């Protein structure tokens, strides 16, 4: 993907450095974000620091992935973000390993975000639906990739559970069934560019948060419990909304190719949520009881990020304005 436009002093310095050889000077720390979860400069800085671990930026030296200056700056920004997420979600109540799956189900059931799915099913116009797809493209075009980082960090039953989920996410090894590919089909049907990262400049920091949170949890072994908890919460709040999304897109004229991504996720995530909560998180908690708190933190943080993003979309649309940083071509 192309290097994005900077959104502040720090991301400006990072974009500039990435155009040079690794080792180019960078700020040592990130400071000054009032709310790290939604701060444009901080979220874009994290995206710039994570993407070299995925598919990289066009024309950027691949050795930036392990550049000590970029890692140092990333660590500083991550510290702010993790503190903010822990403060926003509060200390997880003590939970016994045998109770983790049930507690995750309770947490997901208690999630009371705005009725984004309902709105997309019955009220949204095509412009709003296309905006929704653009927001989600930041993650869905690399769907499942952050969680693959956890595989070598797990063993035994939790590892088998994650492999079972990931194999399905990647289409059982068939390209045309990979969920990221299906999402590209939906984008194409909506006359949107399905190229990886094409809309990075369009989405606000609150949208980058959802993807950055997964990258932070995925790239730091210490946070493997949080990554698994986030995955469980994501799957546990997915099958019902995907029914709404698919119905909404059908209402707006989407054909079977356009809605396939959502239709597949209704049934797939009904499977994944059981595996993620019971076989992945439940057995990880039994194997490593010290991770119980982080499993619950990751779930709460993921739900919090989704709630912030949904609130942003609904607020913008209620006010009659775009939820993106710039309007889409029709």
């Amino acid at each position, binding site marked *: 993907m192309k290097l994005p436009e900077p959104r502040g002093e720090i991301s400006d310095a990072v974009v500039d450095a990435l155009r040079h050889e690794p080792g180019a000077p960078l700020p040592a720390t990130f400071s000054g974000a009032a709310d790290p979860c939604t701060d444009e400069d901080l979220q874009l800085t994290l995206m710039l620091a994570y993407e070299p671990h995925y598919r990289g930026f066009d024309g950027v030296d691949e050795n930036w992935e392990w550049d000590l200056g970029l890692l140092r700056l990333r660590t500083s920004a991550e510290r702010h973000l993790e503190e903010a997420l822990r403060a926003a979600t509060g200390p997880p109540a003590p939970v016994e390993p045998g109770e983790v*799956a*049930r507690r995750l*189900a309770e947490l997901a*059931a208690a999630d009371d975000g705005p009725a984004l799915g309902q709105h997309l099913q019955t009220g949204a116009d095509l412009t709003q639906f296309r905006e929704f797809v653009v927001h989600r493209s930041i993650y869905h075009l690399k769907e499942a990739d952050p969680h693959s980082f956890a595989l070598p960090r797990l063993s035994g039953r939790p590892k088998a559970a994650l492999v*079972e989920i990931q*194999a*399905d996410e990647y289409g*059982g090894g068939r390209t045309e069934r990979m969920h990221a590919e299906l999402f590209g089909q939906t984008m194409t049907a909506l006359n949107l560019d399905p190229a990886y990262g094409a809309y990075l400049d369009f989405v606000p920091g609150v949208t980058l948060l959802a993807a950055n949170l997964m990258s932070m949890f995925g790239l730091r072994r210490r946070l493997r419990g949080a990554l698994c908890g986030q995955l469980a919460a994501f799957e546990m709040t*997915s*099958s*019902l909304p995907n*029914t709404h999304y698919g119905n909404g897109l059908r209402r707006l004229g989407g054909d079977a190719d356009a809605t396939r991504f959502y239709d*597949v996720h*209704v*049934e*797939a*995530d*009904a*499977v994944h*949520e*059981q*595996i993620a909560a*019971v076989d992945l998180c439940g057995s990880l908690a039994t194997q490593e009881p010290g991770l119980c708190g982080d499993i619950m933190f990751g779930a709460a943080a993921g739900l919090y990020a989704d709630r912030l993003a949904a609130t942003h979309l609904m607020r913008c649309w209620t006010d009659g304005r775009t939820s993106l940083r710039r309007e889409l071509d029709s």
Partner: protein
Amino acid sequence: MSATVTPYEDGPLLLRGDFEIVTPDGDRIEQEGATVALCRCGKSRRKPFCDGTHKLVGFTAPADREKPLS
């Protein structure tokens, strides 16, 4: 691998391994992934598959054989 059916607490039955889901006439019912979740709350709108509706209707069931009434 032979087929296994696993009841998940308050949720669906997960079906893994080598299996086919067919109508009474023997026609194949296509499935999405290698593992499927079969509805057991009776409220799914994707039957025979689970669509998560059990969470809205307060469905409860154990992950093991239900104990007979004493």
